[in-house]
C-alpha cells in the first residue's frame, strides 16, 4: 500500500542521479540568504579562530611568564584570553541570532511553495497521493532540511575548516606530529563514506514509513465514526501497531548504524591523541619540543575531538536532508496537468450565453483501462436545464467534473459558446460555473466563509437570497448566525443542512452555468418540493446540467439525457423518453425491477 501509490515512483528507479542532487536543487531558497550565509561563515570562522587562539595563549603563559616569573606578563596574557573568549561568544551570538531567522524563513518559504503547488495539482493527482505522505513532507521532512541548512551545513564547513586550520597549526608547531594528525583524516574519510551510503537508504525508508503512519492516522481520524459504528478500534489499533512497529524497527536499525559510526569517530581521534602523546613525550624528552609546546599541541589537538565527533551527526543529518529533499522534489516535480494554455482567454460573465457542448468527449481515469465516457455528444442550449440520468456508476459525476475542468477530457472537446474550455483561463471558466458535488464539501470555518468560497466579494443580500433559494435559512439560527463555525466536513450539521448549504454556495452570485450533482438527495419530500420551486426560478435563465436519480427532480429539467455504457443513448423531454425509451423507464421507474439480461443495473 505505501509506496506504489506514492507520487511518481518512476522517477525514483530508472536513473540514479547524485544523492545530493535534490538538496542542491533547493538552493534558490538559500539564495536570498546567500550573502548573509557568507557573513555568518566568516563570523563562525572568526569565532573558531578566537577559540583556537586560546591554547596558544596558554602555551605563551606556560613558556613565558610562568617560566620567567613575570606577573605583569601573566596578567596581560590572561586579559588577552579573556578578550578572545568574549569575542568568540559575541560572534557566536550574532551568528545564531541572524541564522535563526533565515533558517525558519527558508523553511516557511519552501512549505508555502509546496502548498501552492499542491493546490495546482488536479484532483486526480490528489486521489493517488496519500495525504499523510504529503503531510509528513511539509512537516518532518522540512524540519530536517531546516536543521541541515541552519546547522548541519554550516558545521560541516566549519568543522572541515577547523580541522584544516588545526592541522596547519599543528604542523607548524611540530611537522612530524602534525602530519601524523593529518593522516588520521584518511580513516575518517573512509568511515564517513561508508556510513553515508548506508544511512541514506535507511533515512529514506524511515521517512516513507513516517508518511505511512501519518496516512494511517489521518484515515483513522476521518473514518472515526465508521470505526465507532463497527467497534473496530482493536483492529485499527493493531493495524497502527504494525505501522508503528515497522517505524520502530527502522529507527532501531538507524540508531545501530549511527552508534557504530559515532563510536568510530570517537576512537580515531583518541588513538591519534595517544600516538601524539607518546611521540610528543619522546620528542620533549629529546629536547626537540618544549613542554609548553607539547601542552599546546595536545590541547590544540583536543580541539579536533568535537568537530570529528560531531561529523557522524552531521553526515546523518545531511543524508536525512538529502532524502527529505528527494521527497519534496517528488511533489514539486509532479507537473500540474490542468493549467492555462498559452494565450488562454478571459470570458466575461455578461458576454456568456451559456451554450455548452460536449463534442465526442471521451474520458478515461489515469491508470484504468476502460474509458468511463466514450464519445459523448451532448448540447445544452443557453438557459436550458438538462438532467443527466443513468444507473449508479455509469459516469454521471465524471461527466460533470469535466465542465469545471477538475479532470481533463481524454479525447474530444467541450465548448462553451463555441470556445474550447481549454482555451479559457481556468479562473475565468471556474468563475462562470457553479458546482455542487454529490457530497457537500464544507470546511471548518464560518458558514459565511463556506458560502462565499468562490465569491469573497458577495454581499449580504446575495448571500441571503442564495440561502433562501436553498431553503437554508436555518443558518441564521445557528448560535452565532453566519459567523458560526461549521464543524469539520460540516459534521455539526444534519445531512440535509449540509446539502442545502452546498446548494446555496453553488447558486450564489448567479453563475452562468450550474452544475449540480444529485443536489436534493438528502432532502425530505417537502423540503425538496420547496427547493425545487425556488430552483426553477433560477434555472429559467441559467444553463444547467443536473444529475438526477429521482423522477421528482427530473421535473426541473427541460430535457433529459440518458447516459448508458459511457454514451448518451437518448435525449429528449421526460415524457418523450418515458414513452419511447424503455431503458429510460427502467432507470427511473419505481415499479417492479425488470432485471433485463439478468445483470444488475449498477455499472462499473
Amino acid at each position, binding site marked *: 500500500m505505501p509506496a506504489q501509490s506514492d507520487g511518481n515512483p518512476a522517477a525514483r528507479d530508472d536513473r540514479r542521479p547524485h544523492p545530493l542532487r535534490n538538496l542542491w536543487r533547493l538552493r534558490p531558497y538559500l539564495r536570498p540568504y546567500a550573502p548573509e550565509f557568507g557573513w555568518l561563515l566568516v563570523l563562525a570562522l572568526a569565532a573558531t579562530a578566537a577559540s583556537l587562539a586560546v591554547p596558544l595563549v596558554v602555551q605563551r603563559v606556560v613558556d613565558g611568564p610562568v617560566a620567567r616569573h613575570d606577573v605583569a606578563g601573566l596578567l596581560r596574557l590572561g586579559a588577552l*584570553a579573556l578578550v578572545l573568549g568574549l569575542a568568540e561568544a559575541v560572534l557566536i551570538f550574532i551568528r545564531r541570532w541572524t541564522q535563526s531567522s533565515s533558517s525558519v524563513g527558508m523553511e516557511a518559504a519552501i512549505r508555502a511553495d509546496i502548498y501552492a503547488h499542491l493546490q495546482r495539482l488536479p484532483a486526480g493527482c490528489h486521489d493517488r497521493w496519500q495525504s499523510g505522505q504529503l503531510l509528513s513532507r511539509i512537516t518532518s521532512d522540512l524540519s530536517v532540511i531546516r536543521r541541515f541548512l541552519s546547522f548541519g551545513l554550516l558545521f560541516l564547513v566549519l568543522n572541515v575548516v577547523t580541522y584544516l586550520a588545526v592541522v596547519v597549526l599543528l604542523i607548524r608547531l611540530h611537522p612530524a606530529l602534525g602530519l601524523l594528525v593529518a593522516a588520521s583524516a584518511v580513516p575518517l574519510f573512509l568511515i564517513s563514506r561508508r556510513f553515508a551510503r548506508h544511512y541514506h537508504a535507511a533515512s529514506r525508508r524511515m521517512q516513507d514509513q513516517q508518511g505511512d503512519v501519518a496516512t494511517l492516522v489521518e484515515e483513522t481520524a476521518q473514518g472515526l465514526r465508521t470505526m465507532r459504528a463497527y467497534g473496530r478500534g482493536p483492529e485499527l489499533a493493531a493495524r497502527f501497531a504494525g505501522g508503528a512497529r515497522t517505524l520502530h524497527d527502522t529507527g532501531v536499525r538507524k540508531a545501530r548504524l549511527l552508534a*557504530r559510526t559515532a563510536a568510530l569517530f570517537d576512537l580515531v581521534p583518541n588513538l591519534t591523541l595517544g600516538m601524539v602523546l607518546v611521540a610528543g613525550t619522546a620528542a620533549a624528552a629529546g629536547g626537540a619540543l618544549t613542554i609548553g609546546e607539547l601542552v599546546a599541541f595536545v590541547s590544540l589537538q*583536543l580541539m579536533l575531538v568535537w568537530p570529528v565527533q560531531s561529523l557522524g551527526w552531521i553526515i546523518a543529518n545531511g543524508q536525512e536532508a538529502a532524502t527529505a529533499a528527494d521527497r519534496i522534489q517528488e511533489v514539486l516535480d509532479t507537473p500540474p496537468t490542468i493549467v492555462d494554455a498559452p494565450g488562454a482567454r478571459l470570458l466575461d460573465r455578461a458576454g456568456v450565453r451559456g451554450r455548452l457542448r460536449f463534442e465526442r468527449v471521451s474520458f478515461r481515469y489515469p491508470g484504468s483501462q476502460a474509458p468511463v465516457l466514450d464519445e459523448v455528444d451532448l448540447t445544452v442550449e443557453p438557459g436550458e436545464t438538462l438532467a443527466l440520468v443513468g444507473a449508479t456508476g455509469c459516469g454521471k459525476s465524471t461527466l460533470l467534473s469535466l465542465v469545471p475542468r477538475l479532470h481533463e477530457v481524454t479525447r474530444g472537446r467541450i465548448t462553451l459558446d463555441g470556445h474550447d474550455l481549454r482555451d479559457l483561463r481556468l479562473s475565468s471558466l471556474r468563475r462562470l460555473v457553479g458546482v455542487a458535488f454529490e457530497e457537500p464539501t464544507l470546511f471548518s470555518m464560518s458558514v459565511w466563509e463556506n458560502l462565499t468560497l468562490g465569491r469573497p466579494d458577495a454581499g449580504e443580500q446575495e448571500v441571503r437570497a442564495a440561502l433562501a433559494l436553498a431553503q437554508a435559512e436555518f443558518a441564521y439560527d445557528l448560535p452565532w448566525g453566519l459567523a458560526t463555525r461549521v464543524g469539520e466536513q460540516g459534521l455539526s450539521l444534519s445531512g440535509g443542512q449540509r446539502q442545502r448549504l452546498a446548494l446555496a454556495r453553488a447558486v450564489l452570485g448567479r453563475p452562468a452555468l450550474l452544475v449540480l450533482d444529485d443536489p436534493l438527495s438528502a432532502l425530505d419530500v417537502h423540503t425538496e418540493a420547496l427547493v425545487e420551486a425556488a430552483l426553477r426560478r433560477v434555472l429559467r435563465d441559467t444553463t444547467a446540467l443536473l444529475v438526477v436519480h429521482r423522477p421528482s427532480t427530473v421535473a426541473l429539467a427541460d430535457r433529459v439525457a440518458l447516459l448508458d455504457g459511457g454514451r448518451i443513448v437518448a435525449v429528449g423531454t421526460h415524457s418523450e423518453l418515458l414513452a419511447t425509451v424503455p431503458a429510460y423507464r427502467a432507470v427511473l421507474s419505481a415499479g417492479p425491477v425488470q432485471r433485463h439480461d439478468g445483470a444488475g443495473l449498477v455499472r462499473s
Partner: protein
Amino acid sequence: MTEAPDGSRRVPRPRVAPDGGLDLKRWRGRATDPDADRSRAEDATPEAVARLRARSRALLGQLLRPHRRRLGLAVTLLLAQNAAAMSGPYLVMLGIDHAIAPLRAGDPEPLVTVAAAFATASLTEYLARRGFLTLTGRIGQAVLLDLRQRVYGHFLRLDVAFHERYTCGRMVSRLTSDLDSIAELVDGGIDNLVVAALSVLSVAGILLWLDLPLAAVTLLAFPFLFWLSRWFARASAGAYRRTREAVALVIVHFVESLRGIRAVQAYRREERNQQIFAAVNDDYREASLQAFRLIAVYSPGIKVIGNLTVAVVLAYGGARVLGGRTEVGVLAAFLLYLRRFFEPMQELSQFSNSLQSATAALEKLAGVLDERPAVAEPERPVALPTGPGRGAVAFRGVSFGYRPDAPILTELELTVPAGQTVALIGPTGAGKSTIAKLLARFHDPATGAVTLDGVDLRDLADAELRRAVVLVTQENHLFSGSVAENIRFGRPGADDAAVEAAARAIGAHDFIATLPDGYATEVHRRGGRLSAGQRQLVAFARAFLADPRVLILDEATSSLDVPTERLVQRALGSILRDRTALVIAHRLSTVEIADRVLVLDGGRIVEDGPPAQLAAAGGRYAALHRQWRDSLI
C-alpha cells in the same frame, strides 16, 4: 453563552478589511464550543500548565519504567565511557609530569605504561560508546512506539463529540509532528544530554581533586550557569508550547483544504487558501523564531561564562605556579579539563533545544491522554441476554442536545420490539440521525436512557454493543484498501466467500465483479475510486456482513438509482426479517418494507403506526406519501 446576546439573527459584515486586504482572522468563524481547539487539560492558566507538566512527567515515568534495567545498563556503559574519556587529559598530565624525566634518563617504562593505559582507555571508550548509543537507541525507539500506540489507542477511545471539537488535523498533528519532535530528541540528543551532564559532574570532581583553590574559582561559575539555564528552560517552555500549537494549525489547514481540493479548485479558492496558509505558516515561523532566538542567547551565554572562567583560571593558576603552589602539568591538565567541562555544556545548550521542544510535545500528548472519554466503557459491563429473537430497543425519557442550551430531543419515549423494522421519517434537521447516533452510543443522552434488550447502553461493553448494533452512517466512509477489505471491516474474520455472499445479497456483486481487479480493487482514499452509489453499496455490504441484532440505516440508499435501490430494498426485506431495524429515509419507497413508521418533527414523534394505516389516516405521513406517490412514474 453560545446564544447571540440579543437572540437576533446575526449577519456578519463582509470580510474585507479597510485596507482592502482580506481579514484573515475571522475566516474560521466562532466555534460553538468554547473549548474547541484543545483538550480540556490544555488550559493557559498557570495552574493548568503546572498540572500538565506534572502529568507529562508522570507519563515519562510510566514510559521509562519498563526499561529500568536497560537504562541501568546504559548508565553503566555511559559511566565507563565517561571514565575512559576523562582519563585522557589525566594521562596526558602523567605523561608530561612523570614520563619525560625518566625518558631523558633512558627509562621508557613510564611512557609505555601511559601509552598502554591510553590505548585501553580509547578502546573502552569506543566499546562503551557504541554499546550505549545502540542501547539508548533501542530504549528511545521502544518508548516512542509505546507512546505512539498509547496516544493512538486513546484517540480511538475518545468519544465522537471530542473528535468533533478537536478536529482531525489536530489529532494528526499530535500523532505526527509532536511525536517527531520527541523522536528528534531520542535519536539525536538524549545521549549528549546525559554525557554532558555526567562529564560536567565528573570533571567537577576531578578538578576539585586536582587543585582545590583553582577548582573553587572554577565552581564560582556554577551559580551563573544555573541561573542562565533556569531562565532558558522557563522561557523556552512557553515558546515551544506556542510552536506546537502553531504547527497544529498549519496541519489542520493543510489537511482540510487538501481533502476538499475539488471544492477548492472548482471555487477558485486557491488564492485565499494560500493567504490563510501563509498566515498560519507565518505564525509557526514566528513561534519557531522566538524559540530559536532564545537559544541564540543561551548558547553564547554559556560560552561567555566558560571563557571567562578559562581566563580567570589561566591568570590565577599561572600565579599559583609562579608561587610554586602547583605544578605546570596540573595547570595544563586543569585547562584541558575545563575545556571538557564547557564543551559538553555547549552541546547541552544545543540539545536543550530539542529537549524543550520534546517537553512541550509531551505535554500536549499528556493533555490528550488526560482527556476522559465522555462516552466511556462501563466499569462493570452487563452482558446482553442471549437467545434467539433478541434486539428490543427502547428510549426512555431521552433528552439530548449537542449543546446544553439547544435540546434536539426532549423526553423521547420509544419502544421497538425485537425484530421490528421501523422507518423514521421527518423533515431535515428533525433529529433522525441524532436518534440513530444515540442508539449506536456515539453520544449518551443527557437524561433518560437508551436500552437494548432491557440493558442500558451505558452498561454494555463496547465490543458487545458493537456486535449487537451497527449504524450505517449518513456520511459513509471507506478506508483506502481493497473493496474486499472494506466489506470485511464489518466482520474482520470473514473469508472471501462470506464477503462475496454479502455483496451478492445486497446486489453489489455485479459492479464489483466488473472492476479491474474485482474485490481486490483499491478504492483509494475515502473510496474516491468508486462512484457515490457504489460507495453506498459497499458500505451496505459491510453492514450486512456484520450481521448485528439491530441494524440502523441512515439514508443508506440516498445516492442509488431507483432500480438499484429497489434491489437493495428487496434484499432488505429478507435481511431484516429477523432483525430489529431502524431505517431512516427520505424516499418513502423504503418505508414500504417497514412494519411501522415514525414521523419525527422538531425532536418529537408526531405520528406512529403501520404505514398503510398512517397513509389512510390523513395526517402528515399521508400527505408526504401522496406527494411522493405523485412524483413516481
